[in-house]
């Protein structure tokens, strides 16, 4: 299997892009990625997207985007793994290049949630849950995560304020991110006093609804110097699944898909959680972020509050979590989020992160979740030697 490099990336700012369509958003990201790579062409395009068929009345996104960005007749297709669609697209692109089927592949994601009104968007996103056994009975993503948060608070005797403090940290980071949807700092009181969505989750525990696109170009590591002066290696990558409904899990406070995918990715990269300098993790809700940090091995189960208090997840700590601001502040353009994460880690490792830059970062990790943890994709990137 060939080793793989990310040789360029392009992002749009995450926001409600009222005047840009799905294709225009991805076109902007793809153009930016293409400008930074001296590639002769693209062999394949693999794009993550979840909601276009519901909210933009658009399927066949691969063909649409390949045509729009002018790379037809190369093969192009969409992959869908709910909020982890971007992570799934990267794994698919990695596999295509590593296997030798393709040499230069564009991967990424695009999502345009602002095309829908709240009921439609909530239903479309809710389809990532179990339609028969969760959605049918009125569960929404926020209500499922509220169950998990309540259970965490009771099991580990964790005050609600801890989750608010995690949101505060995410906004502190995101305030320095030019691509962030909510680039401003908040206080604990902002979170605690914001509108209650599903007890105990309040508005500021949640990632915002936004639009965005990210594109990356992958090629064999050995060819990377031909196409780019700055690139990073994907040294580990894996995906895993868990039960789609949370009721069937032996422990709803463990995201087993993340545990399994992370374990595989660490082994592939020959690294451990202690080696990771920075991580972009999936915090759709503050509880999702807490569980992710624990299940990636950055923290013992139930010890999140202690480590947060010790500043373990900030620059200078054990691992800097979400220097981009994460889903909470950067935003969550659902099917594109996994691609944003990889681009952001690449940006950090290459020293291109501007005000977000975490000094001396060599190893970075991304973790992208679909559903309430039914799918996870983990990538480990390192500065190319």
């Amino acid at each position: 299997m060939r080793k793989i490099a990310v040789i360029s990336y392009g992002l749009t700012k995450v926001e409600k892009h009222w005047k840009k369509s799905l294709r225009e958003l991805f076109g902007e990201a793809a153009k930016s990625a293409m400008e930074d790579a001296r590639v002769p062409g693209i062999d394949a395009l693999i794009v993550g997207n979840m909601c276009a068929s519901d909210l933009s009345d658009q399927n066949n996104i691969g063909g649409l985007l390949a045509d729009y960005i002018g790379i037809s007749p190369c093969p192009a297709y969409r992959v869908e793994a709910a909020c982890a669609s971007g992570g799934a697209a990267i794994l698919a692109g990695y596999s295509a290049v590593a296997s030798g089927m393709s040499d230069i592949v564009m991967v990424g994601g695009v999502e345009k949630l602002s095309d829908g009104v709240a009921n439609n968007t909530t239903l479309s996103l809710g389809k990532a849950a179990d339609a028969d056994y969760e959605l049918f009975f009125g569960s929404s993503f926020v209500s499922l995560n509220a169950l998990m948060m309540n259970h965490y608070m009771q099991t580990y005797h964790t005050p609600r304020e801890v989750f608010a403090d995690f949101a505060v940290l995410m906004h502190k980071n995101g305030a320095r991110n030019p691509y962030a949807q909510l680039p401003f700092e908040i206080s604990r009181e902002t979170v605690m006093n914001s509108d209650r969505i599903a007890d105990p989750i309040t508005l500021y525990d949640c990632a915002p609804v936004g639009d965005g696109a990210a594109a990356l170009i992958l090629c064999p590591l050995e060819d990377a110097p031909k196409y780019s002066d700055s690139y990073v290696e994907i040294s580990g990558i894996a995906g895993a699944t868990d039960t789609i409904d949370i009721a069937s899990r032996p422990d709803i406070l463990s995201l087993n898909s993340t545990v399994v995918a992370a374990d595989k990715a660490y082994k592939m990269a020959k690294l451990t959680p202690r080696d990771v300098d920075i991580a972009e993790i999936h915090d759709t809700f503050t509880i999702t972020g807490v569980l992710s940090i624990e299940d990636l091995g950055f923290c013992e189960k139930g010890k999140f509050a202690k480590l947060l208090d010790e500043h373990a997840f900030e620059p200078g700590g054990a691992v800097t979590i979400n220097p981009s601001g994460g889903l909470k502040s950067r935003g969550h353009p659902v099917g594109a989020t996994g691609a944003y994460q990889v681009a952001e880690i690449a940006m950090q490792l290459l020293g291109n992160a501007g005000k977000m830059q975490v000094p001396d970062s060599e190893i970075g990790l991304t973790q992208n979740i679909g559903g309430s943890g039914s799918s996870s994709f983990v990538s480990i990137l390192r500065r190319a030697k």
Partner: protein
Amino acid sequence: MKPAIDVVVSGWGSYIPLYRVTVEEIARIWGKSSRHFKDELLIDEKAVAGLDEDVATISVEASKNALARAGIEPKRLGAVFVGTESKPYAVKPTGSIVAEAIGATPRVLSADMEFACKAGTECLQCCLGLVGSGMIDYGLAIGADTAQGAPGDPLEFSAGCGGTAILVGQKSKEKAPVALLEGSASYVTDTPDFWRRQKRDYPSHAEAFTGEPAYFTHITSSTKILLEELSLKPSDFKYAVFHQPNGKFPIKAAKSLGFSKEQVEPGLLVPWIGNLYAGSSVTGFSAILDIATPGDRVLVASFGSGAGSDTFSFVVQDGVVAKRDKAPTVSDYLKRKQNIDYAMYAKFRRKILV
């Protein structure tokens, strides 16, 4: 845009129904928090039309007040236009009912206009054109609504009732002009942010889409065009009225254009009567004429979903002082109120069908 002949406001008049329902009362029924509506959208309560009131009666009351201030015979009106999205009849003009009731028929042009919340200023534009071209001596432009909001929908917290009539005439024939039109600008695109289909009782809306791409884009664009055409800047105005779907939007739009809160607040009525839809910006203008002094420059900007904005610049004239007391002011109507509970509101607004 500027008419060939100078056009002035000759009279103005408003009408706001007696009844009010608070946002707390609506929130109580639907199990919602009133905080968002009170603290962020700055709405305390909204005006509710009584059982025997509709856009026709509101328009007649407002028109009588405008005629009293203008001091002209109704027969001199060459046009009566009613702008509304709450027509009592789907087919049968409200304008003819109003024209008949105030004594302007039969030698009069009349029609109903619809452009969501912009319909009132749309009528004003038409009257300015007819008067400004010399086709008629006087025209009456009415913006009025008994606005619809589906039970429990966010719109229900703001959809109010009331309206205003603006009577315009040729400057050369008006002895006591109230305000001189300096110019106007319109800005329209096909932006489907809010709509009501045929045979539907309540409108639909595209939530946040009603904000940036609809309200803010249009109202700031028409205003910028007018300021540029007249070579004016925000500080040249004493007052500015922006369409008031809530309290937050007009203040934000004004700020983005360089107007101060002090210029906007005197015409900001939404906290006490809600969004009067087609009557909103013209009633704000009416409240300004109630207090303005000659020489004051006033900016009036409407917004209608679908979407478009009209912006006007007026300079207040000496006639405003003598005419002011000839009819009740907006402030008089704000003070004259009776609060009702949700049950009475539901009955008055015919939300309970028997």
